[in-house]
């Protein structure tokens, strides 16, 4: 497959600016082979791209963002096979091209880019491009695709003075000024009107002293005396009443009617349609279109993709020429002749979040994906890492078939790196996991073990679990870390449901003792926890804490003994 591209230079023309999404082609300039394809846009969170290491194996490569992609590819029949193999490819560029280049090792298909430096290439993928291409046509950049070529049957455009193109049977009264515009057959323009840079359809009626600038007015529209229209799109059979003002960026769909004297809002520009998003007739909004008008403001039910676009619109003055415009009922029908990509945009808006998520998975890592899948599991705790980690660990502790804890440890570490989780979060997750497991073992269906046995079972049944708790859960030799871990265990126990306070207190004491005897926690750590005010900041915590008094007292004594032993040891040396 060869992708046909037009270079637009370092100072891009409006066609390049109007793209919204900037395609990034990484091309081997010697062979013209396309090595990687990415897309960037101003709204993405990460302003960098990852280059495939394989790119560097080519002697030379260019990273080009100065290309206008008109969406024309020269394909071999293999391309169709590739498409049908990858049924999840929706967009020819973002999915297909990106995917095929990425899986080059797998497919072994080479793709090439033909970069043109002359001629004209563009694709009307959104209203901004429609605007831009229309202006290029009027300025003859697209020769021979200019109005006076009359390429379509039945067209009779002629070039007249003022750089305009006029079809037969156009009546422009004396005093009407038409410059840099195209006017279709049967349109009448009354005296005093000034039209510049605009495209006017057939059989339009334009009254006296009307001002139209850089606008697109489709067939059979009526613009009454004294109205002004600036940089807007008026679809077929629209009626604009006398002395109306249609500010920049307005979109008015088929058959809408603006009553006389209405000033349409300019920020944000209005989008008026007689149909609502659900394709039913909308209730006329008299405050918008005036008394006697027809049509209402058109809004799309925003999903995630769209809300992104709206963000861009807020920053972009030509908000209504953004890709959202396609959703306008009337426009959608007609733009199909201009842009085949309109249908792609429909996909975007129709598909639900899961598709959007999967399409972005490549760009944003797995975070989003996981998040959405676990969000339903535990809605109260939106922390994806925590839930994920606790599930993983508890599952590993429960596992009957394997004594090995290394797999769970690996998974946990991977998760931690993927989410950039803090030490505190890890500690909390590990504490919760072990406490859950221990609490489970107290329950009758798991054998109704005594707290001490349950604690021992939870910590020691799997090889490496103790080491894991020591290295990752506590995460250091310091007294402070040990105290933190003990606190985490205590808090985790209060959160365990279905356990009476007495038993959970006993379990906490058993766990601490077990950890002590396993050399995970030292007496300084446990004593530091005991002294910590946070360990007794509410009743539940305090009740648990009190249950450990025996242990702590024993520890204090042991401490004394030990210290004396140490002294003795020292003396021995």
């Amino acid at each position: 497959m060869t992708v046909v591209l037009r270079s637009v230079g370092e100072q891009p023309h409006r066609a390049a600016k109007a793209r919204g999404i900037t395609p990034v082609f990484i091309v081997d300039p010697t062979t013209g082979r396309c090595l990687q394809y990415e897309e960037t846009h101003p709204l993405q969170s990460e302003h960098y791209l990852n280059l495939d290491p394989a790119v560097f194996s080519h002697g030379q490569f260019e990273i080009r963002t100065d290309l206008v992609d008109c969406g024309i590819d020269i394909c071999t029949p293999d391309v169709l096979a590739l498409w049908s193999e990858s049924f999840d490819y929706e967009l020819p560029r973002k999915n297909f091209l990106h995917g095929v280049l990425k899986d080059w090792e797998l497919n072994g298909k080479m793709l090439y880019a033909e970069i043109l430096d002359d001629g004209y290439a563009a694709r009307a993928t959104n209203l901004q491009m429609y605007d831009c291409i229309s202006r290029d046509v009027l300025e003859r950049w697209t020769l021979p695709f200019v109005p006076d070529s009359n390429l379509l049957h039945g067209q009779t455009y002629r070039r007249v003075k003022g750089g305009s193109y006029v079809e037969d049977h156009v009546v422009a009264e004396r005093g009407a000024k038409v410059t840099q515009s195209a006017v279709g057959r049967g349109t009448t323009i009354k005296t005093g009107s000034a039209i510049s840079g605009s495209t006017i359809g057939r059989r339009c009626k334009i009254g006296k002293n009307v001002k139209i600038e850089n606008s697109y007015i489709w067939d059979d529209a009526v613009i009454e005396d004294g109205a002004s229209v600036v940089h807007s799109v008026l679809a077929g059979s629209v009626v604009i009443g006398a002395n109306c003002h249609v500010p920049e960026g307005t979109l008015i769909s088929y058959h809408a009617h603006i009553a006389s004297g209405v000033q349409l809002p300019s920020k944000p520009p209005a989008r008026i349609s007689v149909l609502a998003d659900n394709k039913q007739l909308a209730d006329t909004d008299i405050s918008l279109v005036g008394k006697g008008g027809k049509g209402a403001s058109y809004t799309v039910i925003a999903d995630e993709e769209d809300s992104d676009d709206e963000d861009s619109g807020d920053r972009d003055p030509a908000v209504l020429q953004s890709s959202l415009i396609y959703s306008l009922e009337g426009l959608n029908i007609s733009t199909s002749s201009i842009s085949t990509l309109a249908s792609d945009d429909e996909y975007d808006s129709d598909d639900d979040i899961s598709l959007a998520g999967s399409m972005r998975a490549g760009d944003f890592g797995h975070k989003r994906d996981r998040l959405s899948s676990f969000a339903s599991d535990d809605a109260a705790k939106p922390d994806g890492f925590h839930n994920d980690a606790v599930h993983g660990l508890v599952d590993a502790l429960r596992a009957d078939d394997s004594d090995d804890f290394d797999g769970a440890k690996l998974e946990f570490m991977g998760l931690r790196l993927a989410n950039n989780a803090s030490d505190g979060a890890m500690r909390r997750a590990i504490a919760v996991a072990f406490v859950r497991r221990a609490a489970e073992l107290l329950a009758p269906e798991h054998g109704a073990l005594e707290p001490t046995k349950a604690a021992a079972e939870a910590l020691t049944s799997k090889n490496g679990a103790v080491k894991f708790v020591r290295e990752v859960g506590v995460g250091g030799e310091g007294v402070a870390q040990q105290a933190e871990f003990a606190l985490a265990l205590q808090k985790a126990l209060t959160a365990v449901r279905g356990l009476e306070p007495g038993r959970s207190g006993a379990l906490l004491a058993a766990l601490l003792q077990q950890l002590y005897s396993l050399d995970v926690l030292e007496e300084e750590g446990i004593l530091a926890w005991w002294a910590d005010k946070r360990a007794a900041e509410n009743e539940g915590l305090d009740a648990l804490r009190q249950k450990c008094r025996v242990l702590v007292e024993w520890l204090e004594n042991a401490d004394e003994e030990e210290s004396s032993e140490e002294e003795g040891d020292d003396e021995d040396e």
Partner: protein
Amino acid sequence: MAPSQAAHVPTLDNLIKSFNNQTLEASIESLIFLLKWRQVKGDECAKATAHILRQVVAKSKWNDVDQLLSRIQSYGSRLARAAPLEPVIGNVVRRVLGLIRDEATEDRNADDLASEAASDIQSLTPSTNPTAHPPQRPAPVPIRPSPSVISTGLQVSKSMFNLLSVANPGDSPITGASTPMSQAQPASAHALRSEVMDGIEEILDEINQADDQIAGFSEIQIHPGDYVLAYQPSRTVEKFLVKAASKRRFTVLIASHAFSYGTSEAPYATLRKKLNAAGVNTINLASNGLMAYIPRVNKVIFSAKAVYQNGGLLVDSGSCIAAQAAYEYLKPVIVLCPVYKFCPEDPSDEVSRGELGNPSSYVSYANGPAVDALDVENTVTDYIPPELIDVYLTNLGPQTRHHLASILADHYKTEDIGFSLQLGEP
């Protein structure tokens, strides 16, 4: 336009080849398509038009001259409308129309002569008026009708009318002349078809040979030691210069406007090689430096896309500067224009304003700020007023402005001059 693009589109030669196995309508449509896309332009238009009209004569159904004429007119006007700035299309259509009228008149005259031979001397009708015979009467007529029949009011008025129309067709309305022709025999349609097709072949030959014929006059026009300024030499001018170079020693200054974007090759390299091989020196000029050389130049030569009846020219843009400069310095301006480029009409508004080309010849589309800020008008055709032209060198020999009318009168029928005015709705 990139040259690479042209390689992929159907060319005129392919198109003409395809005429034989396509339907007539398909051929016409594909030619109109090429004209609109400007893949066929200039001299090629004339050839293509002649070819397609020959197909119209050969393939379309017609029983009499009137039908044939209206076919040619309707197809011709479609072609002419497709390329309003290629007047040669209209010229060829007019030539073919005139040809058909001539053939039809000959046929009828032959019939009339035959009938006259059979008629009696006692006929009261003056023998100098062969067309005064009642046209609706099928020929050959063995016996002349009695004078009493002829003298009925209706018959007489018709006869008088026809008499006038043949003697002086310019005075009759367009349809008037065709009235008698409609009486041509269906039997003679076959003969007429082959005669008209032969005639179109002749027109094609004329178009093909015109350049060589014009080149034949080169040694008369170019003298030894001349400095000849050739502005953007077309194929016609190239042939003319190469032919002259075989006989004369002179110097050619080749002027062309600013080189178009991205081409590194020196312009007119092949022409210069040919001329140098013949021992003629060439000098390349940019058109903005042309004025400085004009005092040294003996004559200015370029070719026209069309010549209007007032003597004005439709030319490639830039020639007007050369013509104007030469006019100011009283240097002769020689225009090479085959007869088929003479239009029996006045230049239209569109012609005098010039055709606009693609601005990318002057401003690169990649230059964003310039594209946004500038309105670039790249005129690709100029209109040159007749005062600036001294000699029109046609394939029939050099002419001055004052003799253009006779050339037009020789080649076009008055009935067909208004051809372009008959362009109706599509």
